């Protein structure tokens, strides 16, 4: 068996550093998702109201965020906004801003489509049965919406964790960057480290994302 360089990770604190890199990426995605979910709920609900102008504004926001690659958004905030507004932004902060903007747009759209997908007769029947507005939402509409929303939001978390791999391009030291550093540092002693280390990175991403997406699929099937 050829030397695949996985042993590099067992030297010193290399594995620990790699996991710390993963934690940086996780932290950024968890903070962003934590802010995006409440904001997305508000945006999504507002998009189903009757205010035309509000709908148009959110639609434009959503489409602009969606049409551009996340990496372009990261560049716009990290290089563009600092230049235009003259402020100082760390890579982490820029990523949190971008992922929150993006997450809010995606979450808002999920909430909107979940609310729209509740058939009209659900509202009408609950009114006919004498429910008050509050009761109608509490007992009828919100439980149904959550069933449709939850699997999709969990998927959004996976997408967010995967997308955090991009932040290495704006200089945040996350797992892929740490992997590069480890490979560079051990170039002489272990020239094949690139294979082993990137393989481990690949597997670590899988280990983090897989439970989420399996849970989402499971819930989707269960609540269909």
């Amino acid at each position, binding site marked *: 068996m050829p030397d695949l360089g996985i042993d590099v990770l067992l030297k010193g604190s290399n594995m620990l550093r790699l996991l710390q890199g993963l934690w940086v990426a996780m932290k950024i995605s968890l903070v962003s998702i934590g802010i995006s979910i409440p904001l997305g709920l508000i945006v999504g609900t507002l998009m189903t109201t009757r205010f035309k102008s509000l709908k148009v504004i959110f639609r434009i926001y959503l489409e602009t965020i969606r049409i551009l690659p996340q990496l372009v958004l990261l560049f716009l905030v990290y290089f563009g906004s600092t*230049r*235009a507004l003259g402020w100082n932004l760390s890579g982490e902060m820029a990523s949190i801003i971008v992922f929150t903007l993006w997450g809010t747009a995606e979450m808002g759209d999920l909430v909107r489509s979940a609310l729209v997908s509740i058939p009209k007769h659900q509202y009408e029947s609950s009114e006919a049965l004498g429910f008050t507005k509050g009761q109608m939402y509490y007992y009828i509409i919100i439980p149904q919406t959550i069933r449709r929303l939850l699997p999709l939001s969990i998927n959004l978390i996976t997408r967010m964790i995967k997308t955090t791999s991009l932040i290495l391009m704006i200089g945040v030291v996350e797992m*892929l960057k740490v992997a590069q550093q480890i490979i560079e540092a051990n170039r002489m002693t272990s020239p094949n480290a690139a294979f082993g280390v*990137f393989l481990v990175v690949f597997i670590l991403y899988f280990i983090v994302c897989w439970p989420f997406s399996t849970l989402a699929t499971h819930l989707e099937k269960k609540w269909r």
Partner: protein
Amino acid sequence: MNWEFIEKYLPMYREAAVLTVVIGSIGIAFAILIGLICAMVLYHKVPVAKHIVNGYVELSRNTPLLAQLFFLYYGFPKIGINLNAELCGVAGLAFLGGSYMSEAFRSGLEAVDKIQEESALSLGMTKYQVMKYVVLPEAISISIPAFIANIIFLLKETSVFSAISLMDLMFTAKDLIGLYYKTTESLFLLVIFYLLIILPVSVIGSLVERRLRYAGFGN
């Protein structure tokens, strides 16, 4: 905004955009092919192959493209498989896209009513004819929205190619920012070119979607 600068570096961006589109379309074409094959395997529940496809779909959906590309570009040469950056880009995009396309086709295939297949069989069509003339056309028309969303998603994913030193739009923009500090102009061109690539796909996509919405049986 320095228009002279923009005029000077426009051709560079154009070249980069062409590269993005070419690698993107080849990768997406392969992704569609892989997706179709995988969906067929899953739909017909081919023994053994079914498990391999399931494993592949899970693996490719739960890892970021950047990690896949690094593994291909930096890791594979160490076990004797040398791929140049372009090939890595195509392979990475096909690997990632294949699973997404497979999911889109599979859900389309599963949405086709069983009665369609049964009626076609009772009319004396062979299994192959049933697939070709009845099930596939309906399944594809059902999966078109997911399919277009995937194409846009994959086009957007091409932005990470710059990390394996492909001279794409991101690479050009980052280069120019580093060289001349013309941040505003470089980013402006970057956004314009991405819009030029993705907006038409999105517009054509929604037109096609509207036309195909009633293609399914019974609507």
